[in-house]
Structure formats: C-alpha cells, structure tokens
C-alpha cells in the first residue's frame, strides 16, 4: 500500500472516524436504557475512543507536516479553542443560573471538530505581525 501524504492520511482517517462516531453515537444513546448499569462505562469508553483517535490524528498530522502546515494547524486549533472556551463558559454559567435546555458536556467534542472545520476555511496562513 502506498504511503499516504500527511494531509491525505488525516482526511481519510478523519472521515472514517466521523462515520464511526455517527454510527456509534446515535444507537448507543437510544439503547442506553437496555445496557446493564455496570456495563455502561464500556459504552462511554466506546464512544470516547474515536474522539480520542481524532486528537491523535491531529497530533500525527502536525508531527508529519512541515513547519508551515504545523503552524497553520496550531493557529487553527488556537482559534477553535478561543471560540469554544468562551461559548461553553457562557452556556455553562447560563445553564447554572437560568433554567434552559441541558446539553450533555460530551457534545463539546463533536462541536469542537465542527468549529475546527469551519475555522480551517478561514485560517490558511502562518503570518504573524513582524516589524517589517
């Protein structure tokens, strides 16, 4: 099998993991009540695994990339985090003080990757302000 470029490998595995998450997530949520209580941690770990794999894939992409792509990915991750943290903070605090729809904290993971995908469209340079 030919060795895939870092970007291709990330794209292919990322799509496969996203499909896996979609396949696992919904059924497990629906059949939660049918799973014996002492076995539910397995369902939780099963759902967490593809998300952790996504994190590993980004780390692997950064390791295999050149300095330009590494900087761009780091910038994208920072922008995504800067968008996600205040959003979850405001929503979490609002939820604490005002009765509203309760969203499981685990939704932060898929939302993070959706926001990351959107950020990728807008952040594609490594330029930083210089004294030039």
């Amino acid at each position: 099998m030919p060795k895939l470029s870092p970007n291709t490998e990330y794209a292919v595995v990322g799509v496969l993991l996203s499909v896996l998450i979609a396949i696992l997530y919904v059924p497990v949520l629906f059949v939660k009540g049918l799973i014996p209580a002492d076995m539910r941690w397995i369902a939780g770990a099963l759902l967490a695994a593809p998300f952790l794999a996504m994190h590993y894939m980004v780390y692997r992409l950064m390791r295999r990339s050149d300095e330009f792509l590494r900087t761009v990915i780091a910038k994208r991750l920072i922008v995504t985090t800067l968008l996600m943290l205040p959003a979850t903070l405001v929503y979490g605090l609002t939820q604490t003080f005002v009765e509203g729809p309760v969203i499981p904290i685990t939704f932060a993971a898929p939302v993070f990757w959706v926001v990351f995908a959107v950020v990728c469209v807008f952040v594609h340079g490594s330029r930083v302000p210089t004294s030039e």
Partner: protein
Amino acid sequence: MKNTLRDLRTARGWSQQELGEALGVSRQAVIALETERHAPSLDLAYRIAALFEKPAEEIFPNPHRKRTRR
C-alpha cells in the same frame, strides 16, 4: 517575509512541487513562502540558501539591517 524565491525557482525551471520535494516541504509551504504568507525558520532559510547556493540574506533580505548609503 519578502524574498526572491519565485524568481530563483522559475530561473531553474522548477515547479513548486519540485522545489518542495527538494526542500522536504509541502507545495503549500512553497506557495506560502513565495506569496510572503510564511516567514521561514532559520533552518528552512538555510536549506533554501544551500539549495540555490546563495547567502540566505540574498534570498531573504534582512529588514532589520540598516541600509548603507553609497
């Protein structure tokens, strides 16, 4: 960062892909360098200088060096 990379590359008849392969970086990195969207590390600047057999400062003019009047 301002540079003469595009001129040097085209003078040798190389594509961006070929230059990327010679430097061990992606085509995106070459495009970013040529369009001044990426300031290279010292290591990459030296690799480029070695490839084109020119001093790094000739390819990437030092913006901090004071211009000398003749």
